[in-house]
């Protein structure tokens, strides 16, 4: 199978996965709350308004008809209105998604670097004190209930030591209201383009050149990022270690040594380089873990991102937000898995002809 065919098959499959998840969640909301018109119309709505909402969302039709309408609305940008915020879901997502993405990307980079390094160390020093310490560290952190870990860090660093902020993505006083990129589109009359970047606290601040805001954003990100990094910590360490041990005993490493390469060049240039290939398969999963973990982390740290938003909608049964948030997180995760699959196909020279 050619690479192009493989990729297009994967893309098609991803699309069906997202559609399937959307259908399941939509169906469940439908049986759990058969007539949400009253809630959606708001607490002080009149009979007429309820009637209007019912017609607008075709709430009298069977669920699959409603689902089709919902699908159409999703593609035309109408994601429903959140009864909790009384705002269109799409605008909420526009505000919250970038915050989470930024946090996830920061954590992802640090997590991958840290775990890779520890994996290398524990392979080179296999069986030694450092190796065992690393192993115990991740075995215990993995077994902590996620929110307990988050709260532990919160209590220690914010309440006891008072060195790090306990909540919010950025100091509200420093929050930027001037996005770096906002392009006015004269045809639609809307601001388009870089809305994702506009709502990323640190990146936007950096682009505008507001160092104080950037610093505040980073400081606020430390605790949530640390917690995210510790969630499921060790999976990559373990994988890197296993494949490094394999690689270090391999014939090509022996060849590399016999060439007179320094130990560092052998470990990083040959063994690690080969071990990173199987590690790429884990990247999608890691990113997925981070995005899913943001649910707990952002709720604990009041970090106003997608996880916080979804957490709130879970607690308050804000159905439109719940569906949209769930599907969005699914989409991110499916896409990151897709990217991983493609990356693996492209990176491994042996799969190329």
């Amino acid at each position, binding site marked *: 199978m050619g690479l192009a065919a493989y990729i297009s098959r994967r893309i098609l*499959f*991803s699309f*069906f*996965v997202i559609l*399937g*998840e959307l259908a*399941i*969640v939509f169906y*469940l*909301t439908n049986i*759990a*709350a058969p007539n949400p018109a009253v809630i959606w119309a708001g607490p002080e709505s009149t009979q007429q308004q309820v009637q209007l909402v019912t017609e607008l969302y075709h709430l009298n039709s069977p669920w699959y008809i409603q689902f089709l309408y919902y699908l159409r609305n999703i593609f035309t940008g109408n994601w429903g209105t959140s009864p909790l915020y009384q705002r269109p879901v799409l605008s909420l997502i526009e505000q919250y998604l970038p915050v989470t993405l930024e946090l996830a990307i920061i954590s992802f980079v640090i997590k991958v670097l840290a775990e890779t390094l520890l994996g290398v160390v524990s392979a080179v020093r*296999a069986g030694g004190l450092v190796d065992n310490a690393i*192993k115990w560290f991740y*075995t*215990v952190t*993995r*077994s*902590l*209930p*996620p*929110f*307990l870990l988050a*709260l532990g860090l919160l*209590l220690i660093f914010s*309440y*006891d030591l008072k060195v790090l902020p306990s909540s919010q993505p950025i100091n509200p006083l420093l929050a930027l209201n001037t996005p770096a990129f906002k392009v006015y589109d004269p045809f639609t009359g809307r601001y388009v383009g870089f809305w994702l970047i506009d709502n990323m606290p640190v990146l936007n601040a950096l682009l505008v050149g507001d160092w104080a805001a950037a610093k505040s954003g980073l400081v606020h990100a430390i605790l949530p990022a640390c917690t995210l990094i510790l969630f499921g910590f060790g999976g990559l360490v*373990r994988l890197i*270690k*296993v494949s490094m*041990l394999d690689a270090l005993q391999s014939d090509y490493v022996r060849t590399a040594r016999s060439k007179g390469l320094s130990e560092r060049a052998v470990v990083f240039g040959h063994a690690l380089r080969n071990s990173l290939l199987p590690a790429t398969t884990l990247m999608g999963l890691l990113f*997925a873990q981070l*995005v*899913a973990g943001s*649910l*707990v982390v952002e*709720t604990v740290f009041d970090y106003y991102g997608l996880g916080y938003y*979804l*957490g709130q909608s*879970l*607690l308050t*049964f804000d*159905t439109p937000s*719940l*569906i949209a948030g*769930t599907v969005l*997180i*699914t989409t991110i*995760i*499916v896409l990151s*898995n897709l990217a991983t699959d493609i990356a693996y196909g492209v990176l491994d020279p042996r799969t190329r002809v």
Partner: protein
Amino acid sequence: MLTGIALLVVLYAGALIAYVDPHLITRYNPDALDFAQANSPPSLSHLFGTDIEGRDVFTRVVYALPLDSLIPFAIVGFGVAVGLSLGTVAGYLGGAVEEIVLRVTDMFFAFPSIVLALAIASILGATSHGGRLYYSMVALMIVSWPFYTRLARAQVLVLRNAPYVKVAEAAGYGRFSVIRRHIVPHILPLVTAYASLDMGTTLLTYSVFAFFGLGAQPPTPELGRMVYDGLNALPGNWWWSLFPGIVLTLFALGFSLVGEGLRDILDPRLRGAA
């Protein structure tokens, strides 16, 4: 691995005693309110302290053990049962059955299980408070099986051509009888290893559900719920949530140590890497 076994033995012994006769361990009643003793920190008379209503935290932890020790078994047990049957049958029969099972499995496998399960539990739980614990468990069951389907199928593909399977087929055993007698027993050890690992994570995932208010409803003593209830009292009365949290951690630690030990024994490629 020995540490893990020891941990689990102690915890499950505790759970058993708590189920049979909790008074062997504690002299308090888990629901007895004692406002004179409310909010007292850990001491000799109240090992884990008391909560806002003066209930002994240690006693409530003990009473929660039977329920909490069964939660991961129920969920993972369901996943293993469904996954194993689908996987072995699909792998052994091949053809259209395999194709269909694989597609559905792939689809469920690609879902971010925690998020989907949270959504399911939340939606179902909206209708009834009392049933939330069970809805959460159902939600986790729904997302638990695809992994085992894949694992079982992969193993079956290897075993299908093993000589003794061929011999059994030649001897005229029916297909399902071959699966039951000759294939499933060979897959079980590896499945057990992964199931043990999975039970640890499942318990932790379940605790996330409790955190979002989707766990057992008061006054049922349940560890995840107790941690959740104690969160509001932080940082002052830390013992409300810390001790139940530690017990949860010990459960998860025990399962994951045992699981890793088993996996290292059974999955030779990973040996020595733990």
